[in-house]
């Protein structure tokens, strides 16, 4: 059967300052199709779909919807062309009922009273097999139910192309099943669904067709019947083989930091980390590889002392430190470079002097109890700037005028000035250019050679292979496997990161 595509995107290119997010992308979706858009974080999936939803404009290329060339200047225009996007954060009015959320704003609401709205909603939802109480208020619903309301809302507004951005991240396994069934019903009625995801097994389970993006380019577009998970994983992460360049550690000593059966709650009240076991030895770099959002942030905060362990223990040199706060842990030698450099690690509007004492201002070295001794702080700052080659115009300028690389060096220098036993650094090279990233890693390597245990949280497999001694692959709140960096390969780690069991004789 020869069908016409509902969506044709041709030659789409979009760049942001410093990054080309989409490069000459061709993308087609047919009616009645569930089309998975697969790729790592930062591969350009969201950008591409935001262009389709009218949020961004492409630098070049065009979009045809149902054969007609259209230019979307706003999400509203895209919506009127039948394209609806469902984000991870739902756009529903919490205090309104399901019926009100579905019907209000769709243009037909004025003539209806509450009863009629609920009746209409019920009638409409049942067409697609939705089972939902139209008079319930949004805040009373689970996230899965709220997602249903979003879908109904989009369908009610006449959308026949539904884009869903990582729809399963907020759902329980049971709800995921429900969602997939719904999607299948919708597809059977001729709607097109685009599923943005990085989860391979979901793609295999529900999609008819898959397009894989990497570094902003399409690396493959194929019916699902012609691929398997391993092939997809390879397409997503494939790179030239990289050798572990880092010199091997001079000494690899005893375990310093150990986590046993650790479970940690996330902000939404779910267990973000479950039964995690990990140890870091003196003089080694352990890298945690994983797609962001698999519990890394919670893990770092728990090590730092900002988050309590729900179960399990964390110990330093064999002593359990579960009950110690962040200052006590810093004193014992746990330094942390947080992921959010400007939001947590540094205070952008304060100057370098104030930033340098962020974690130690209360110590006797810098303060007599009431006043801070800025003279000694300045001395420390000058030393640090010199030792770590930090470039800045003035110690009294707010640090947000400094470049990313200098900020990261400052942050690491500050943490190292405490002479830690363990340094935890999250995404230390994020946003840095190659030279800056290299100088940051060099600092870390030197520190390792002095015998400090280093835990890196990384996304970039290239960096992992270049610098880590051991790789712990994190997925869905647990450590999948811990591997020696020189005894594994990129395919294996890539697969583990995506929750796929990698079968290989040598592993």
């Amino acid at each position, binding site marked *: 059967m020869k069908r016409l595509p509902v969506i044709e995107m041709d030659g789409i290119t979009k760049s942001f300052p410093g990054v080309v997010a989409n490069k000459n992308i061709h993308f087609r979706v047919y009616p009645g199709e569930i089309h998975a858009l697969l790729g790592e974080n930062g591969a350009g999936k969201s950008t591409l779909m935001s262009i389709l939803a009218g949020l961004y*404009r492409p630098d070049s290329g065009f979009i045809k919807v149902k054969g007609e060339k259209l*230019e979307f*200047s706003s999400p509203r225009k895209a919506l009127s062309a039948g394209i609806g996007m469902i984000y991870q954060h739902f756009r529903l009015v919490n205090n309104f009922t399901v019926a009100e959320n579905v019907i209000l704003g769709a243009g037909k609401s004025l003539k209806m009273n509450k009863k009629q709205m609920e009746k209409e909603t019920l009638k409409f939802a049942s067409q697609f097999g939705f089972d939902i109480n139209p008079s319930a208020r949004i805040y009373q619903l689970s996230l899965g139910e709220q997602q249903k309301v979003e879908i109904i809302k989009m369908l009610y507004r006449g959308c026949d192309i539904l884009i869903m951005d990582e729809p399963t991240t907020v759902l329980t396994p049971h709800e995921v099943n429900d969602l997939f069934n719904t999607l299948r019903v919708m597809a059977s009625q001729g709607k097109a669904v685009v599923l943005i995801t990085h989860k391979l097994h979901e793609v295999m389970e529900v999609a008819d067709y898959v397009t894989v993006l990497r570094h902003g380019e399409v690396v493959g577009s194929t019916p699902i019947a012609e691929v398997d998970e391993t092939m997809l994983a390879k397409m997503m992460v494939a790179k030239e083989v990289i050798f572990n360049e880092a010199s091997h550690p001079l000494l690899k000593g005893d375990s310093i930091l150990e986590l046993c059966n650790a479970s940690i709650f996330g902000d939404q009240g779910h267990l973000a980390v479950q039964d995690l076991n990990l140890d870091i030895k003196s003089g080694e770099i352990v890298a945690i590889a994983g797609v962001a959002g698999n519990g890394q942030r919670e893990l770092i905060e728990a090590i*730092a002392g*900002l988050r309590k362990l729900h179960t399990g223990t964390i110990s330093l040199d064999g002593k359990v430190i579960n009950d110690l*706060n*962040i*200052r006590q842990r*810093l004193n014992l030698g746990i330094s*942390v470079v*947080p992921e*959010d450099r400007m*939001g*947590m*690690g*540094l*205070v*952008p*509007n*304060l100057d370098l002097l*104030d930033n340098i*004492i*962020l*974690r130690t*201002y*209360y110590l006797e070295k810098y*303060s007599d*109890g*009431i*006043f*801070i001794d*800025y003279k000694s702080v300045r001395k420390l700052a000058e030393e640090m700037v010199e030792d770590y080659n930090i470039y800045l115009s003035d110690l009294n300028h707010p640090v947000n*005028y400094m470049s990313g690389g200098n900020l990261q060096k400052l942050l690491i220098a500050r943490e190292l000035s405490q002479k830690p036993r363990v340094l935890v650094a999250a995404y230390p090279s994020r946003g840095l250019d190659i030279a800056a990233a290299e100088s940051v890693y060099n600092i870390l390597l030197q520190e390792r050679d002095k015998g400090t245990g280093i835990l890196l949280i990384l996304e970039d497999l290239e960096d992992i292979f270049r610098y880590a001694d051991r790789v712990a692959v994190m997925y869905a709140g647990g450590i999948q496997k811990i591997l020696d960096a020189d005894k594994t390969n990129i395919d294996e780690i890539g697969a583990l990161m995506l929750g796929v069991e990698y079968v290989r004789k040598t592993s």
Partner: protein
Amino acid sequence: MIKAKMIKRQHESLLVDIGVPIFSILLAFIVSGLFLYFSGYDPGETFSRMLKGAFGSSYAVSETIVKAIPLMLAGLAVSLAFRMKLWNIGAEGQLYMGAFAASWVALSFGDLSSWVLLPLMFLAGFIGGAVWGFIPGALRGYWQVNETITTLMLNYIAISWVSYLVFGPWKDPASKGFPLTPRFTLSGYLPSFGDSRVHMGLLVAVVIAVLFYLVLRYSRWGYEIKVIGESQNAARYAGMNVARNMVLVMLISGGIAGITGMIEVSGITHRLQQDISPGYGFTAVIVAWLARLHPFSIIVVAFLFGALLVGGFGIQTFGIPYSIVLMLEGSILFFLLAGEFLRRYKIILVRKEEQ
């Protein structure tokens, strides 16, 4: 299509820092001058009278200072909370509670000598306001209740409470039923400078400003306020107790607003009555912002603000109705605030692509 967009200025430039305020002040006087002219009043004469009313004689200057003292103190009070990004707009209520507590001391222990009574009133004023700051502070620190709303609501309670007292239990039997408390004894009067009405409150304001400056700039606690105000996440990471600091800051902010109330009853009205403050607690918010929360700037801005109010009020006898005076003051203020905004943000025109 061309659209205007506001973006935050990335770099501070001297040209902008100096040019924008000069321009906005000039514009304020030009526009309000035109406004006066077209309303049939002589702008030159009007401004000259305003100036004379505020600075024209030692008496005028002293009255400007009298008006400025509560603005200084209340401005300092709110600025402390603002530094931590706590929107304390309850200085008015805290002022009333301070006035209430200080009046209680003055009316109950009037026989004590000044040396004992005044410090007691001072302390009571602080505590009265501090309690009124502590409540929203604790609600915010420990239960994330929005302090803007709670401080605003507590204003009404405090003002009504004082009304209740002066109409009811504290009413002076000799006042033939008018809502006034009895006068304080002389030892409850805050000493003033010479014959003028300028009282020791000025000294209190200056001392508090200096203390603020030292604490905020050099002290450990000032450092914590700075960091918490800038980034609560960074503060947690630094191991600071964010909630406790919020409570403490609101308590002190309220306490200083309470001292403002004590100073007004002890230095000016010498008794508790309704309307001890014509909105000082709210005007203080503007003063604090125009001064960019800097303690010394607050003293100076409050003085000039007092001048604007005192000088503006007086031009009524030139035949300008009070409503026009208010518009005049309003437009001057408007240009100052707009200028301040332009100093922080720049407006750029963006060409939107045609369809």
